[in-house]
């Protein structure tokens, strides 16, 4: 130890002889100021937390909290509940009827027609029978009317569809003014299936047919039979030839 101190004697002496560095003159004043400022800030912080929990100060803050709670509930109750669109059931369209058995529907339709016809017949019984031509024309008108109604129904449904399509695809929808004209034009070109369905819907009797019923005498009947035989005979060889 002593050897070391002798070895570094110069260094030790140099360091010991160094001038002592003193603190600045205003050191204590600065320190007092800093301590006081820290004390003040501490008191301020304390005071703040204490002041918050003073009952007199609590009243407005409690009032504010109560008001906030009320506002929250008012806003909450008035707000519309947003339903999840994936959980909402689709609306049932009452204007559309889903048909599974088309034959059954057809039969029901025919039965309804029969009933209505029979009712009309019953009503028409006491009245005098109209002429064949009048009957025919009235039937024609009725059938035409039905056809018209059915076609118009179809067209209205198609028109609705076209309107919807027109909205979505940007096409022009059919206007009401041109609707009547379209019905008339369509009436002339009713598809054969539709006409056959309409015909099948009513039973046509022999009387209602547009045949001229002529009362033939015996002579005239014989002549007609002979002519029939001749026609038949003339057709037979042709068939055999083939």
């Amino acid at each position, binding site marked *: *130890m002593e050897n*070391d101190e002798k*070895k*570094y004697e*110069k*260094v*030790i002496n*140099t*360091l*010991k002889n*160094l*001038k*002592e*560095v*003193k*603190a*600045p003159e205003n*050191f*204590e004043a*600065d*320190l007092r100021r*800093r*301590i006081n400022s*820290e004390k003040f800030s501490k008191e301020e912080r304390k005071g703040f937390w204490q002041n918050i929990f003073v009952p007199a100060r609590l009243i407005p803050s409690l009032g504010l909290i109560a008001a906030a709670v009320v506002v929250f509930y008012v806003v909450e109750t008035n707000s519309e509940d947003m339903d999840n669109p994936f959980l909402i059931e689709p609306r049932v369209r009452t204007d559309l009827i889903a048909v599974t058995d088309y034959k059954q529907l057809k039969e029901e339709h025919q039965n309804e027609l029969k009933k209505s016809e029979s009712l009309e017949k019953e009503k028409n019984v006491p009245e005098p029978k109209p002429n064949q031509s009048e009957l025919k024309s009235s039937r024609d008108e009725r059938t035409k009317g039905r056809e018209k109604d059915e076609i118009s129904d179809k067209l209205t449904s198609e028109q609705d569809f076209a309107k919807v399509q027109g909205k979505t695809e940007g096409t022009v929808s059919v206007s009401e003014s041109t609707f009547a004209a379209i019905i008339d034009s369509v009436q002339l070109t009713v598809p054969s299936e539709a006409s056959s369905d309409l015909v099948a819907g009513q039973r046509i009797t022999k009387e209602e047919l547009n045949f001229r019923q002529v009362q033939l005498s015996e002579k005239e009947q014989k002549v007609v039979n002979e002519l029939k035989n001749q026609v038949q005979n003339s057709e037979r060889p042709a068939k055999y030839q083939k």
Partner: protein
Amino acid sequence: MNKNLRELSDEELILEFQKNNVEAAFEILVQRYKNPLTNFVFRFLGDYTACSDIVQETMIKVFRYKDSYSSVAKFSTWVYTIAGNLARTEYRRQRRRNIFSISDFGEEHKTYDLPDENYRPDVIADSGIKDEIIQKALLKVKESYREAVILRDIQGMSYEEISEILGVNEGTVKSRINRGRAQLQELLKDIYNE
């Protein structure tokens, strides 16, 4: 009252301040330690403004954390430990700042030793300049050695006190002091050869 307080030891004063909150006791402690602490911190840092701030900060810590002082230890070791910790932190901060400021002008991750013309013997004229040279040499000594050398050779503390302040055993303290002295001797050889 003040007369009586002035007669008290450091430990008694701090206990007075702790238990009875006598601020006069604290003021006496400040008067006793302001210069030694300033000297210690300045020799360690080499920056007077920073040194003054650190000593004030040390005193504020003593004031604020007076209850953490244990009467088992000496007051001087406690207050020097606080000052030493603060000084070390400041020194590292300054060193980081210097490294970054030099790196900005040159290549990255390179530190530079600035040439010091003051070591030339013809420049040395008076004791003021000599002090400056010694201070600069001290700053070139390794941080841990420097602290031990200052506490031993400038502050005149015992190895036991230094070991308490630095938190290392006495053997380590002695070793650090010797290494520090050796480095200093090497740095100041021009002055000694004169």
